C-alpha cells in the first residue's frame, strides 16, 4: 500500500507516456470548428471602421463575430466592469480582441483575419506607470497602509536612505497556451472545456456574455499545462469567445492561442516602479520605512487592486519595522491588463524592501546578512496591518540555513576568491521570505468538495481546485485516503466541474490545498462518521469505538476479523446509509478592514530563507548562478516530493524573472519580447547544479482556531518564487567587487546587458540607487536619486 507521503504525482504516470489529455487533445466532437482572434494592431485608438464582410465570404469561414454579435453583456471584468470581451469603440492595448473568426480549420481562420478591414485612429500611448499617474490614469484610488509615527521616526534616525527601484514584469510561459472548447448542448446549455484556474469565473462570465443563467453553463477542467496565475482571470476571454462562436454557429468551437498570440494578447506580472525611504538607528535597527509603489496595471483592472494590496501587505517582508507607511497607485497604461502571477504583488514588495535593506547595510558598512538577521520578525512582532507574527518562523529558518551552510564561511570563501581573481568575481546574498497565506479578499476563502463512495469501495472526489501541475490531485487523494483510512489508490480525483462544485474560488493564493483539502477532509469525515455509526449499529458499542486504518475496520484499535472497508461500505449500502457527502470549508479567524488597514488577513505566514551564490564574468557581463541553498518551512508536509517540486519550481521561476526574463514594451506599446526567441525563461543550463532545497518540518501553524492544514501542512505554491530575488543582490555584491567605486542601481531583471552596462557603461544615468538623504555624503546624490518622497 502506498503511504501518503510517497504517493506519486497522480497525473505523472499518464504524463510520461503522453496520455494525459489537455483541452484540444480530447477527441473532436462532430462538426468541430476552429476560431481565431483579431487583435488590435495598436495600443490605443478609436475604431473608425470595422468591416468583416470580405472575411465572412472566404471559403471555410463559418462566422465572423464582433462586439455587436454578443447576445448578453459585452463585459468580462470580474472586479471592475472595465473590460469588454470584444472592443467596441476604442482599443486600449495592442492585442486587445476585436473580432472572432470561426472556420473549418485553424489555419483557415487565421488567414481569414487578414480579410477583416479595420481602421483605427491612433491615440496617445502610455506605457510608463509614473507617466500614467501624472496624467491621472488610475484604475482606482491609491491604497495606503500605515503603522506608527513614520515622520517622527525618520526625524530620529541615525541614517535615512532613499532611492528608486525598478522591477520588470514577467510573462507566465505556461507551456500550454490559453485554450478552450465550447460545445453547445440542448436548449441554451453550453458545455465548456477550459484551461482555467477559475472554472466558476469562466462559468459566470460566459453566462454574462451569452445572457443566460449561470446554471446553463457547465465548465469542466481536467488539467492545465501550467497556470502560475496566468489562467486565473485571463483564461476567461478565450472560453467566452469559444462559447460566442458556438452560439453563433450552433456547432462546437475550439480556440487555441498560438504562442505568439498568447504572448501578445495576455496580461503578465505587473511591472513596478517604486521609491523607498528607510531609516535606521545607530545600532543597525530599522526604525522606519516608507514605500511608494507605481503599479503598471495595464489597460484594465483585472486583479490589479488585490495584487497591489498584497504588495503593501508584504512591503516589509520578514523585517520587524515599527514605523511604516506604504502607498500604492494602480496606474492604467496601454499594455495588456497585468494579472495574477505566482506571488501576486508580494514579490515586487519584497524586491523594494530588500533593495532598501541592502542600501542601508551598505551605508552602515555592515554585512548585509548580519543587518538582515538583526531585523527579522520574531513571534512577538506585529505586521503593519496589525496581525501578530506569532506563526512566523523566519528566525528559525534563517538560523537553520546558517547552521547548515555557515554564512560566515561563505563570506570568507567568496572574499578569498575575489582577492585572487581580477576579471571574475563572486557574490552572494541571503533572501528571507515571509508570505501571508489566504486570499486577501476574505470571502474567497471558502471551498467545497463532493465525495462519493461506490459499493465496491472505490471513491470519487471532486473539489473546486484545479490541477495545474502543482500536485493538487495527489494532495487531495492523500487527504481523502488519510481521513477515510484507506489506500490512496482507491481514490479517484475527478475533473473540476461547475456542475459538481458550485461557486468555487480560483485555484490561487497558495490556498488550493488548504481550502479544498479541508473541504475534502470534511466530506470524508461525514462519510466516515456514518460508516462508523453503521459499524456500531451492527456490532454494538459506540461509533467512537470504531476506526478505519489501512482499509481495515478496527474496534478499540483491534482488527475485527474479516471486516474491512469494502465490507463495511457494502453493508452500509444495503442498510441505506448515505455514501456521498459534500464538504464545505471556510478559513476561520481571518478578517480585514480596508478602511482602517487593520485586521488579520492571513491564516498564517509561510517562511524560509535562501542563500544564492553567483559568479560574474567581468569580460562579458555574463554570470553563473553557482548555487542556491535554502530552508523552507512546510509544516507537516502532505507529500514531500510535491512540496519540493513546488519549492524548486518556484525558485527557478523567480531566478528567471530576476535575470533573463526581459519583458519589454516600446513607447508604442508593442511587446518587444513577443516570442520565445526574445523572451527567454530558464533552461536547464541556467539552473545551478548545486540546488539544495531543504524542507523544514515543524508542527504547522500553531494555535487552535488558526490551524488550517489540512493535517498541519502549510501552503507552498507561491512563497518559494521569492527566493529567486536573492540573485539580484548576489549579483550586486559581485559587481561591487569588480568595480568598488561604482554605484549600482536597484533594477530587475539583471540581464547580461544590464550587468555589462552597469559595469562598463557610462556612469551617468545609472541613478536610482544612490544615497540621497544620508547625512554625511549628501553631496554624492545624483539627480535621479534625489526625487523626493512626498504625498
Amino acid at each position, binding site marked *: 500500500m502506498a503511504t501518503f507521503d510517497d504517493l506519486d504525482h497522480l497525473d505523472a504516470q499518464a504524463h510520461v507516456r503522453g496520455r*494525459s489529455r*489537455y483541452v484540444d487533445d480530447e477527441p473532436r466532437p462532430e462538426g468541430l470548428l476552429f476560431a481565431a482572434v483579431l487583435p488590435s494592431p495598436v495600443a490605443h485608438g478609436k475604431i473608425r471602421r470595422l468591416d468583416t464582410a470580405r472575411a465572412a465570404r472566404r471559403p471555410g469561414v463559418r462566422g465572423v463575430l464582433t462586439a455587436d454579435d454578443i447576445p448578453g453583456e459585452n463585459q468580462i471584468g470580474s472586479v471592475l466592469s472595465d473590460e469588454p470581451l470584444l472592443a467596441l469603440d476604442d482599443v486600449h492595448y495592442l492585442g486587445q480582441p476585436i473580432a472572432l473568426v470561426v472556420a473549418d480549420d485553424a489555419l483557415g481562420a487565421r488567414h481569414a483575419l487578414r480579410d477583416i478591414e479595420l481602421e483605427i485612429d491612433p491615440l496617445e500611448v502610455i506605457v510608463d506607470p509614473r507617466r500614467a499617474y501624472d496624467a491621472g490614469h488610475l484604475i482606482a484610488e491609491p491604497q495606503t497602509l500605515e503603522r506608527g509615527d513614520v515622520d517622527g521616526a525618520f526625524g530620529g534616525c541615525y541614517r535615512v536612505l532613499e532611492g528608486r527601484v525598478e522591477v520588470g514584469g514577467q510573462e507566465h510561459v505556461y507551456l500550454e497556451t490559453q485554450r478552450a472548447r465550447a460545445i453547445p448542448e440542448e436548449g441554451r446549455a453550453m458545455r465548456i472545456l477550459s484551461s482555467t484556474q477559475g472554472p466558476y469565473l469562466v462559468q459566470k462570465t460566459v453566462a454574462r456574455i451569452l445572457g443566460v443563467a449561470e446554471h446553463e453553463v457547465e465548465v469542466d477542467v481536467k488539467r492545465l499545462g501550467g497556470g502560475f496565475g496566468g489562467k486565473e482571470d485571463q483564461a476567461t476571454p478565450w472560453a467566452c469567445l469559444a462559447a460566442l462562436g458556438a452560439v453563433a454557429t450552433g456547432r462546437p468551437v475550439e480556440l487555441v492561442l498560438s*504562442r505568439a498570440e498568447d504572448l501578445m494578447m495576455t496580461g503578465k506580472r505587473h511591472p513596478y516602479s517604486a521609491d523607498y525611504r528607510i531609516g535606521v538607528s545607530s545600532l543597525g535597527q530599522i526604525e522606519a520605512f516608507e514605500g511608494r509603489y507605481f503599479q503598471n496595471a495595464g489597460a484594465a483592472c483585472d486583479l490589479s487592486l488585490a495584487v497591489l494590496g498584497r504588495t503593501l501587505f508584504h512591503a516589509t517582508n520578514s523585517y520587524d519595522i515599527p514605523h511604516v507607511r506604504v502607498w500604492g497607485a494602480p496606474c492604467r497604461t496601454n499594455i495588456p491588463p497585468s494579472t495574477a502571477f505566482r506571488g501576486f504583488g508580494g514579490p515586487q514588495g519584497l524586491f523594494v524592501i530588500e533593495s532598501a535593506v541592502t542600501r542601508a547595510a551598505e551605508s552602515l558598512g555592515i554585512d548585509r546578512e548580519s543587518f538582515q538577521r538583526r531585523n527579522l520578525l520574531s513571534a512577538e512582532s506585529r505586521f503593519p496591518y496589525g496581525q501578530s507574527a506569532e506563526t512566523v518562523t523566519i528566525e528559525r529558518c534563517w538560523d537553520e540555513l546558517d547552521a547548515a551552510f555557515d554564512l560566515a564561511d561563505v563570506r570568507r570563501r567568496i572574499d578569498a576568491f575575489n582577492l585572487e581573481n*581580477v576579471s571574475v568575481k563572486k557574490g552572494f546574498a541571503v533572501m528571507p521570505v515571509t508570505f501571508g497565506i489566504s486570499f486577501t479578499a476574505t470571502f474567497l476563502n471558502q471551498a467545497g468538495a463532493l465525495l462519493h463512495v461506490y459499493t465496491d469501495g472505490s471513491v470519487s472526489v471532486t473539489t473546486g481546485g484545479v490541477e495545474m501541475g502543482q500536485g493538487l490531485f495527489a494532495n487531495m487523494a492523500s487527504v481523502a485516503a488519510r481521513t477515510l483510512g484507506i489506500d490512496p489508490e482507491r481514490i479517484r480525483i475527478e475533473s473540476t466541474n461547475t456542475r459538481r462544485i458550485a461557486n468555487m474560488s480560483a485555484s490561487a493564493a497558495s490556498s488550493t490545498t488548504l481550502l479544498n483539502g479541508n473541504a475534502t477532509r470534511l466530506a470524508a469525515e461525514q462519510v466516515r462518521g456514518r460508516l462508523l455509526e453503521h459499524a456500531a449499529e451492527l456490532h454494538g458499542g459506540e461509533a467512537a469505538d470504531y476506526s478505519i486504518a489501512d482499509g481495515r475496520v478496527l474496534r478499540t484499535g483491534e482488527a475485527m476479523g474479516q471486516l474491512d472497508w469494502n465490507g463495511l461500505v457494502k453493508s452500509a449500502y444495503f442498510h441505506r446509509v448515505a455514501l456521498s457527502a459534500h464538504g464545505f470549508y471556510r478559513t476561520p479567524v481571518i478578517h480585514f478592514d480596508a478602511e482602517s488597514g487593520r485586521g488579520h488577513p492571513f491564516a498564517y505566514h509561510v517562511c524560509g530563507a535562501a542563500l544564492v551564490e553567483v559568479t560574474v564574468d567581468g569580460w562579458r557581463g555574463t554570470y553563473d548562478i553557482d548555487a542556491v541553498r535554502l530552508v523552507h518551512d512546510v509544516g507537516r508536509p502532505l507529500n514531500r516530493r510535491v512540496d519540493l517540486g513546488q519549492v524548486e519550481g518556484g525558485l527557478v521561476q523567480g531566478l528567471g524573472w530576476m535575470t533573463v526574463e526581459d519583458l519589454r514594451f516600446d513607447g508604442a506599446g508593442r511587446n518587444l519580447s513577443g516570442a520565445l526567441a526574445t523572451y527567454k525563461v*530558464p533552461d*536547464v543550463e541556467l539552473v545551478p547544479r548545486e540546488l539544495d532545497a531543504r524542507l523544514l518540518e515543524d508542527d504547522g501553524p500553531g494555535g487552535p482556531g488558526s490551524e488550517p492544514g489540512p493535517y498541519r501542512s502549510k501552503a507552498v505554491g507561491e512563497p518559494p518564487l521569492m527566493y529567486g530575488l536573492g540573485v539580484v543582490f548576489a549579483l550586486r555584491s559581485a559587481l561591487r567587487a569588480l568595480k568598488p567605486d561604482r554605484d549600482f542601481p536597484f533594477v530587475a531583471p539583471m540581464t547580461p546587458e544590464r550587468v555589462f552596462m552597469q559595469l562598463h557603461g557610462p556612469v551617468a544615468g545609472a541613478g536610482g540607487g544612490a544615497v540621497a538623504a544620508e547625512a554625511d555624503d549628501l553631496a554624492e546624490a545624483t539627480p535621479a536619486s534625489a526625487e523626493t518622497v512626498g504625498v
Partner: protein
Amino acid sequence: MESAPIRCLINDRDERIDPATVPSGLTVLDFIRNHLRAPGTKEGCKEGDCGACVVLVGELEPAGDRVRYWPVTSCMMPIAEAAGRHLVTVEGLDVGGPNMAQRLIVEEGASQCGFCTPGIVVSVMGRLVDGGSPPPTAGGDGPRSDALADDVDRALSGHLCRCTGYRSLRSATRRTFEALREHAGVDGLVSAGELPDSFLEVPGRLRDLRDAAATGGLDSAAAGPAPATPWVAGGTDLYVQRGETLPAAPVSSLHRVLAGRPEARGVRLDGESLRIGALTSFEELAQDPLLRARVPAIPQFMDLVASWQIRTRSTLGGNLINASPIGDVTILMLALGAVAVFEDLGGAGETRELPLEALYRGYKQLDRRPGEVLIEVRLPDLSASDRVHFEKTSKRRWLDIATVNSAVRVRLGDGVVEDARVAVGGVAPIPLFLPEASRALCGEPSLDRLQAALEAADAEIAPISDVRGSADYKRLLVRHQLAAHAATLLPALDADATYRAVATA
C-alpha cells in the same frame, strides 16, 4: 514534382502521405496532431524554443544496415522531409508500461503539469537510442567537472519546463543514463525491454522504402528541384520566419533534391582543403573527427548554438544562405576562411566558388544566381596548428540568439601572429568579416597592438539598438569579446593585464 506521395514510417506504421491533401510544407507536428490525432506530441511555441514537440527522426545509414536516430523539434520540420525516414513520437516509444526514463521521471517528481514531459522523454530516449554517438558518459565527481552531468544537460538543452526547476529532471535523466548506458543503441534497449520490438524491423522497412523510391519513382520528388517552391535545408529559421505560410504550401526538401549527391553532406579531406557538405547538420559538424582535429573546441562552441534538438536539423548551408547577420556558424565559417561552392542544378554541373565574405551584399542580399544551390563549403587552408576561438554573448547562454558573436582564427609562428581572421555578428546588416581588425592583429602580440585592433574593429562595425541590446552595449561587447579572443589565443598576452587594460579603462 510534388504529386508523388511521401512514404515514411511513423512509429510502427507505414504512412503514405498524399501531397494533394497534405501540403508537403505542413509541419510534422501538425501532421501528427491533426492528421494522425496522436496527442502526445505537444505544441508549445512553434519556433523550436520549448521542445514540447520533439520526436525522433530515424535515418538509414548509407550502408543500409543501421538506422541513426536524432531528436528534432517537429514544429520546424516539413513533412516532405519525413520521406524514407522513421518518425517516432512518445506513443511510438511505448512498451506497454512506463520505460526506465518514464518511471524515473515519475519517481523523481519530475513531471508536474506534464505538457513538456513527452518531448523530454523522447530526447532522453533519443540520447540512448542514437547508435552513432558514444553512450552517455559514466558519472564523475563534483558538480562542475562532471561529464555525465554535462551529457544530461545537453540532452535536456532544448526543453523548457516551467514547473519543476529542472533539478528533478536532471536527476531522473542521470539515473536513466546510468541505468541504461550499457544498453545504449536500438538492439540493447530492445533486449532490455526499454524499446518496442518493432524498432528491430525498421532498417529493413526503410530499405524497402529506399529501394521503392529508387526503382519505382515512388519518391520521384528526389529527381530534381521544384523551382517555384521554397527550398528547405533544415528549416529551423525558415519555419520561424514563415510559420503561417510554409505549412500551407508545397516545399522542396533539399535533402530529397540532393539525395544523389553524397558530397552534399559530411566532411571530407580534399588535398589541403576540408570540404563540408552544405547539408551537414550542426551536430554532425560538432562530432566530425576531421573538423575536431583542426578545431578541437568545436563541440563546446556548438553547445552555444541553438539546442541539441535543433542542431540535429540545422544545416551549414541553411545557416550560410539564411544570411542572418548573427548566424553563429556563419561567423565561425567567416573566421575559418570558408569558400562557398555553388552549382546551378539546371546547368551542366560546373561550380562557382566564392569566398564567404564576398557572398553577403546587404541585409539578406546574396551574390547567388537564380537556380544556384550551395553544395559545399571549402576550407582551403585550415590547419591543425591554427588557433580558433568563438565567443557568443546572449541573454541566455543556451538556445538564444546572440547579441554579439565573434570568431577569430590566428596562425602563429614563434609566437608572432602571421595571419588573423576576425569575424563579428550582430553589428552590421550582414555577418561581418573585419579585414582591418584582422590585419591589425598581425605581428608581435602586445596590448598596444590589441588596442589598435580594437580601434580598427570599432571603425568597421555599425551596430544598431534593438531587442538584443543597445548599440552602445554591442559596441562595447565587441571590444570585450575581441580582447577575450586575444587573451585566449595569444599566450603572450596576460589575461588579467588584458582585462585591466580593456575593461577597466
